[in-house]
């Protein structure tokens, strides 16, 4: 086991890793930027080292500076948290080159996770379902009609050269495809200078279900059940829960097996998440592998009894994975609300400033992962995630009641936060019934386009 670990992150995840180290008797080094001198993670670590100016590119993303900090403090391993350098192949490689253990996947895993087209191909070969699509660009309408008959309607037609959701058309049948294909082609040519189109099966009102996996250096891969992450805004997750109210035991087994196959197919190492889209007819499709510990990991910890961060450390120190999902003492239901310093009434505009009043919730069934304290000034330079509030009970209804009560107790002022939005969602009957899809949040907040002034 390691004697000293450097935590290459800030905020709540730095605290999470530092706490795991302290519980394990491992010394830990906190790194910080000049804007983070008053951050809580510095107070809980054994050593603190400044790695650069406020702007992340010069501090938390500065590979050389972090590697030097590990060298100076004699840290044997680096935990990258999530975000920042967590999925940078170059950073994992730099650790290896300097004889520092990177607590995370291998550089090869990170490279593949970032290459979605190759990853999809490997998954398909390994028998993991992927979204049916055209093998490459589609030029002619006849070709498109033939392909769509195979893939099945509705289909999504998009510009091969496009991005950011532009130039996408949904065609519900062949008639619409015949009408829209030439228009999409013209639009693609005008917008991207390339009229090649790409066709993919359109998954209607999908749910976003992901599976936690762990893998050791000896080829053992286990999954730790699913997380329901359907409630999102602009691809940012807001509320997660485990288990998913949507999965039957059979579907859980099928998706869990697919997640393990996915891990095996890429020789995955350490903690990771396999993301799937699930349609109304129980078809699920591989989306991507998130090669890191995830923000929403606590809900898996509460329902499986596995401390994922300690597992990451143990596996990085050549520990062996000696359990499967069936062996875990699974119980209860956990829900996480990501509390952001954003104003849900003003298009989620960020809300930095000083936390003048801070009153955290507590009591039975409440876990709070946060770096806030009264008097803390939220820097403008970093993410708006300020707290992860997690409730746990034996039933989903129980977990909702605890979350509702905890949100009522939680005071963070004068900053604007997403607490009032979550409070409304907890009272919503669709949420309570577990009946939602990825467009659910539009029921509460308009999906405004910032460009429409």
């Amino acid at each position, binding site marked *: 086991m390691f004697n000293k670990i450097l935590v290459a992150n800030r905020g709540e995840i730095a605290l999470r890793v530092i706490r795991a180290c302290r519980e394990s008797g491992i010394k830990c080094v906190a790194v910080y930027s000049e804007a983070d001198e008053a951050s809580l993670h510095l107070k809980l670590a054994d050593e603190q080292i400044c790695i650069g100016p*406020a*702007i992340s590119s010069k501090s938390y993303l500065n590979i050389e500076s972090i590697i030097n900090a590990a060298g100076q403090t004699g840290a044997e391993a680096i935990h990258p948290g999530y975000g920042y350098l967590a999925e940078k192949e170059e950073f994992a490689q730099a650790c290896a080159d300097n004889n520092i253990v990177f607590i995370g996947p291998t550089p090869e895993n990170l490279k593949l996770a970032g290459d979605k087209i190759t990853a999809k191909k490997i998954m398909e070969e390994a028998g993991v379902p992927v979204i049916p699509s055209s093998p490459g660009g589609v030029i002619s309408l006849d070709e498109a009609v033939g392909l769509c008959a195979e893939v099945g309607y509705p289909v999504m037609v998009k510009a091969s050269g496009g991005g950011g959701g532009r130039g996408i058309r949904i065609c519900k049948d062949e008639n619409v495809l015949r009408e829209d294909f030439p228009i999409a082609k013209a639009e693609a040519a005008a917008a991207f200078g390339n009229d090649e189109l790409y066709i993919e099966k359109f998954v209607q009102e999908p749910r976003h279900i992901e599976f936690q996996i762990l893998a050791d250096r000896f080829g053992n891969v286990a999954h730790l059940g699913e997380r329901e992450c359907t409630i999102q805004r602009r691809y940012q997750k807001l509320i997660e829960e485990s288990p998913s109210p949507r999965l039957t035991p059979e579907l859980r087994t099928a998706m869990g097996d697919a997640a393990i196959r996915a891990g095996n197919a890429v020789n995955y190492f350490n903690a990771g998440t396999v993301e799937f889209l699930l349609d109304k007819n129980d078809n699920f499709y591989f989306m991507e592998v998130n090669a890191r510990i995830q923000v929403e990991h606590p809900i898996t910890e509460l329902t499986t009894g596995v401390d994922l961060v300690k597992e990451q450390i143990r596996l990085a120190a050549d520990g062996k994975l000696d359990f499967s999902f069936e062996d875990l003492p699974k119980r209860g239901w956990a829900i996480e609300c990501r509390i952001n*310093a*954003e104003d849900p009434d003003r298009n*989620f*505009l*960020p809300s*930095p400033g000083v936390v003048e009043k801070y009153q955290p919730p507590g009591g039975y069934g409440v876990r709070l992962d946060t770096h806030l304290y009264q008097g803390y000034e*939220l820097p*403008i*330079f*970093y*993410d*708006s995630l300020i707290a992860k509030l997690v409730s746990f009970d034996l039933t989903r209804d129980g977990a909702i009641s605890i979350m509702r009560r905890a949100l009522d107790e939680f005071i963070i002022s004068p900053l604007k936060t997403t607490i009032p939005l979550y409070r409304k969602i907890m009272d919503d009957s669709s949420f309570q019934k577990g009946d939602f899809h990825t467009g659910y949040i539009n029921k509460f907040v308009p999906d405004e386009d*910032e*460009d429409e*002034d």
Partner: protein
Amino acid sequence: MANGKKVEVRAPMSGVFYRRPAPDQPPYVEVGDTVNKKQVLALLETMKVFQKVKCPVNGKILEIVPQSETPLKDDDLMFIIEVG
């Protein structure tokens, strides 16, 4: 239409001021440029969210106050524009 009236553009909230859309691209505007109402003058990044700083009037850039990539406080002066 030039009447010499000056308009100040101030930061709507604290954030990091960027004059370019990306490090390898030219600045949105330079001093002396003629600008139109709603034209993007700069970006302001607050907690990883980028807001477009838009020009409130038709006119000409007289002054660009902050250096690019510097943090601004709420209401700091960013641009002075001559209305015209």
